[in-house]
């Protein structure tokens, strides 16, 4: 094995050594926690992906040991490789946070915000992103652009209204199909994802475009409106499939299999592509050997359920700011609700703030 050189990089004051050729994003992912920039278009498995959504922009405050000049513009961390001695600012940079707020706003101005009826809700990267990096309101008061829903074959539906043009499905389909059958029509804010002459994409693995889609633009028609993801319980399972690895995640309620997806890692990226047959047709527990509850580490609502072995995201804030965080207040000191002299069980019905007054 040839020696790979190691580079020392610092992200938000945390220094780590990574092999040369690593991107800033992946270096930050190795540290984990809050210093990892959000990535809406980059996908490790898709070589050409990244650079488009601009949510992962970071500031390079020192280019490298050799050339310490800062980079003039924010750079997409998913497409910028590290240099030795590079210093990067993500959450410690006002510029980055400001730009990122702008990007989230841009991504949302034409988004229908139809989460209440969207199958992706609860496991949607755009929901997470807006929650973590967006503002409460919008300044956009124009009609949002709309498209017709489109069926891409018998199993997949495209809701173009929700699409954020990350191109992940395009690269996935490119890798799977012979010709450029699935791509982008038009340009600018009227561009849309579509297939060649509205044809069904005929490929045994095409269902994977559903999994790579960060939002609810590509959905599984066999699961459509069947259940909310947070009511289903993810379990890892496998079967001996001749086409794919057969390693999947079942989304179950009781012993009913509602949905089958590929397994995703902590960055919400697919571990192994799965075939259409596993995804769309094996919807009975008899088809599968169940391994046990899935580990879901992403910050979506599903992760709020208490599953065994859930990996907690590391807390890095003390390292970023170089000291223990000082809390503005201790909620237990100021909240009346925690007054031990009031016995909640004695109160009829749900407790009301009036119940705590004057005691």
């Amino acid at each position, binding site marked *: 094995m040839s020696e790979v050189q190691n580079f020392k990089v610092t992200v938000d004051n945390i220094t780590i050594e990574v092999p040369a050729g690593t991107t800033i994003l992946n270096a930050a992912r190795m540290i984990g926690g809050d210093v990892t920039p959000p990535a809406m278009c980059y996908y490790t498995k898709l070589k050409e992906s990244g650079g488009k959504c601009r949510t992962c922009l970071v500031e390079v405050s020192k280019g490298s040991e050799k050339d310490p000049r800062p980079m003039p513009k924010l750079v997409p961390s998913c497409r910028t490789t590290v240099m030795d001695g590079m210093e990067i600012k993500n959450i410690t940079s006002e510029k980055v946070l400001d730009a990122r707020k702008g990007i989230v706003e841009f991504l949302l101005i034409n988004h229908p915000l139809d989460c209440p009826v969207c199958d992706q809700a609860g496991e949607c990267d755009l929901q997470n992103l807006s929650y973590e990096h967006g503002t409460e309101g919008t300044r956009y008061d124009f009609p949002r652009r709309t498209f017709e829903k489109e069926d891409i074959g018998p199993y997949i539906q495209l809701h173009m209204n929700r699409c954020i043009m990350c*191109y992940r499905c395009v690269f996935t389909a490119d890798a799977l199909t012979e010709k450029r059958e699935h791509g982008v029509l038009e*340009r600018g804010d009227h561009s849309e994802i579509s297939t060649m002459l509205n044809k069904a994409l005929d490929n045994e693995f095409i269902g994977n475009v559903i999994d790579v889609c960060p939002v609810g633009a590509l959905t599984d028609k066999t699961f459509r409106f069947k259940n909310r993801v947070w009511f289903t319980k993810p379990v890892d399972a496998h079967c001996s499939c001749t086409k794919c690895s057969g390693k999947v995640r079942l989304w179950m309620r009781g012993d009913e299999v509602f949905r089958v997806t590929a397994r995703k890692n902590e960055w919400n990226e697919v571990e192994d592509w799965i075939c259409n047959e596993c995804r769309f047709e094996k919807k009975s527990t008899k088809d599968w050997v169940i391994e046990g509850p899935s580990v879901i580490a992403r910050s979506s609502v599903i992760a709020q359920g208490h599953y065994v072995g859930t990996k907690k995201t590391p807390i890095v804030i003390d390292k970023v700011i170089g000291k223990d965080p000082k809390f503005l207040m201790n909620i237990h000191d100021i909240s009346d609700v925690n007054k031990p002299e009031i016995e909640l069980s004695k109160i009829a019905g749900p407790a009301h703030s009036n119940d705590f007054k004057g005691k």
Partner: protein
Amino acid sequence: MGIKLLLENDHIEGIKNYDTYKKHGGYRAAEKALKMAPADIVEEVKKSGLRGRGGAGFPTGMKWSFLAKPEGVPRHLVCNADESEPGTFKDRYLMEFHPHLFIEGLLISSFALGSNTTYVYIRGEYAWIPDILEQAIQEAKNAGWLGKNIQGTGFDCEIYVHRGAGAYICGEETALIESLEGKRGNPRMKPPFPAIQGVWMRPTVVNNVETLAAVVPIINMGGDEYAKIGMGRSTGSKLLSVCGNVNKPGVYEIDMTISVEEFIYSDEYCGGIPKGKKLKACIPGGSSVPIVPANLLFKTAKGETRLMNYESLSDGGFATGTMMGSGGFIVLDEDQCVVRHTMTLARFYNHESCGQCSPCREGTGWMYKILKNIEYGKGKMSDIDLLWDIQRKIEGNTICPLGDAAAWPVAAAIRHFRDEFEWHVKNPEESQKRNFGLAHYADPRPIPASA
């Protein structure tokens, strides 16, 4: 009379044809260049100080010397003839009326860079020009200037003309390369730069039409002589395409020492503004560069005379200056509405964004919609600040400079003409009937005392 290097033979009947061109000194530079070592040609171009005429003004010689030369991998020269920037039409003039000058420049540059297959990517709307170019290519070939073993030197070169399909973004060099390869014209992520991996992942140089044509006089007179024309880092001559409120719109060749005022008012060039109207504003370098009010056009903020060159036009940065850009000189007289003008540009960028990256895709449309409201008397005061904030969030955060190009005109219009925007908001009805007019935009500006 100003200097004429590119349009020297403009008055000659039939200069389009090979024989006439040859008779008037054509292909002299090519003859000379083919006897030189390619590296020496690059050296001459470096010495000439020639800067790219496509908009960014990057030194051409330096760009050429960055070209990677891996063993056994073909290299390509690609000429950017996509010229789609509103206000710019100088390349069209060169290609339409001086095709052989252009071909000669292409040949010398191809030889210098070792490109055996050279492409001209031409704007789709220039539908009639490929025929002119192809005829010129055929004539040059018949005379032994293209094809195999050119003039017995052993150098082979073919030039292909490739038509675009009508997208401004395909003028951006990496989008152009994608389009040339037959793909969707989306700009590529850089790095890698075209000099390392361009067309079909081979080392590629992309240059503007005027840049490549300028190589002919450079070889004829030598780099050092060429560098003596003009001033500072603005060497040689520059073509400008003038449109808007002037008496004589058209294409002019200037040496970059004349003042902006002279350029607009002298009879040799624009011939002043029709009907004795007053000048309100000007965009000196094509739609992407910042608009400046009359009082910043003739004099810089420091009170110096502004000249028609790269340095002087950008004096004062974006706060009080603008840019040479691609030389699309747009003049606005007192009857023009800056809000409407800005809206029109915003509409253009909205329409031309490729849609790859979120700030440009979403932001350009948003800016257009707000500007449309303001222009049609439906704007709010807060819209002006909102516009400012949107352009600020697009600028610098996109994949390619189209995002910046969309942000700058809006920023500059608000920076210099904010009261005109406010007037539109405050007088929604009146603004539908008349224009804000010249206001104080031509008044002399106080000059800060130097320390």
